[in-house]
């Protein structure tokens, strides 16, 4: 089973600041992995590095079999990133945005319409300009773009933020569906109760390094690689984690 994310001592600089100071990270296909850690720990940078947006300047890093140090652009159209920013054109409507980004990713309008329906954006909201949307509605639109594009690796930065109860449940079920369809999910969150219920595995990031990598078997080992030889769909045991 080839790993989807494979980082070895990855260093990323934001300007002159080492946001990642040597990260070892493994994510296997079909896993849902939670990144947690304090503000400024480097969670967002891990996600952006996985998307090929931030260059890895030292160490080894590959995502979906693409060596990021050799060509970090090649992986971009195969991943989906939900960041803090919406990535939407304010003056275009919800439907305009979802269709444009879906087409850019070689998806069909039918995929875009289905995604909007799934996120509860069909109907009246579809023709509203993004500038008029609430934060939660924008979040849903960004998620609809993601769903329509069907990425192989989902990178979600605090996906639950700004959403109502319904929306949060929806995010969880979207992640489960994505994994069922053969994708992989790596997400960062501060809402540990909810997030750990969904995640197969939790990785704690601190100071730009992996502080704790808690594999499903429950062994806490700093910087230890995940058991990549294991079966893809690892049984999550939410009760054990949350209790």
């Amino acid at each position, binding site marked *: 089973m080839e790993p989807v994310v494979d980082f070895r001592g990855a260093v990323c600089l934001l300007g002159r600041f080492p946001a990642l100071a040597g990260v070892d990270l493994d994510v296997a296909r079909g896993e849902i992995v939670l990144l947690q850690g304090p503000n400024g720990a480097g969670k967002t940078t891990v996600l952006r590095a996985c998307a090929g947006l931030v260059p890895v300047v030292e160490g080894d890093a590959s995502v979906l079999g693409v060596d990021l140090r050799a060509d970090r*652009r090649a992986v971009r159209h195969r991943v989906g990133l939900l960041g*803090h920013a919406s990535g*939407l*054109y304010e*003056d275009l409507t919800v439907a*305009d945005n979802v269709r444009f*980004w879906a087409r850019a*990713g070689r998806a069909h309008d039918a995929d875009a319409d289905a995604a909007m329906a799934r996120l509860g954006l069909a109907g009246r909201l579809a023709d509203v300009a993004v500038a008029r949307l609430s934060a939660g509605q924008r979040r849903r639109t960004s998620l609809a773009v993601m769903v329509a594009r069907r990425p192989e690796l989902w990178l979600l930065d605090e996906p639950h933020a700004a959403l109502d109860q319904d929306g949060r449940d929806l995010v969880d079920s979207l992640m489960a569906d994505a994994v069922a369809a053969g994708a992989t999910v790596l997400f960062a969150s501060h809402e540990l109760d909810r997030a750990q219920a969904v995640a197969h595995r939790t990785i704690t990031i601190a100071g730009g390094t992996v502080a704790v990598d808690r594999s499903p078997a429950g062994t806490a080992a700093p910087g230890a690689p995940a058991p990549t030889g294991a079966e893809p769909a690892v049984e999550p045991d939410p009760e054990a984690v949350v209790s």
Partner: protein
Amino acid sequence: MSAGTPSTLFRDAALVVGKDLRLEWRSRVITSQVLPFAVLVLVLFAFALDPDRRILGEATPGLFWLAVLFSTLLALQRAFAVEAADGVTDALRLSGLDPAGIFLGKAAGIAVHLLALELVLGVGVTFFYGTTPHGPVLLVATCLAATAGLAAVGSLYGVLSAGMRARDTLLPLLLLPVVAPVLIAATQAFAAAYDRSSGEGWRWFGLLVVFALLYLAIGIFAFETLLEES
């Protein structure tokens, strides 16, 4: 998608230009702000140059292109502010769109806006300055070539200064000296058309074409590098 085939290149360009035109259709920023600005510039020129003394008529080609140039700056700032807002640049990088296609699409979108502007300004100089247009073929050809050049070099510098400190002041400083040849050539070609001495005008047209092709080529090759954050 660093190496796109020609078909994906033009597909992506069409997608981007379609998006930009739709964006203008929904927001009307160019129509309701830049266009009136361009006409206002024509009126201000008349105030500065005393309309009774026939200076306006003689200076029409130069004033026309100067008004186009100033409006181009505004149109560019609008076109690239849209791409820099709220994570859109990241989304573009991740979109899988061919960077050269994005460049061609942005340039085409700007070109369409500029051609609309030039049409209005053309009517404006005829109406306000009393200039009678001659040599329509040369006039139209000059507009097309000059617009292509302005759109190409403008898109190149627009993305270059996007997301940068002090970009609003930097863009004119970088762009205006580079497009000075367009101002000269387009003005001379227009003057030739108005004077019905179009033989000279076609030489200027040739220079405009060379300019446009050069900057289209540079943009296609450089845009991928410029789109990167680092």
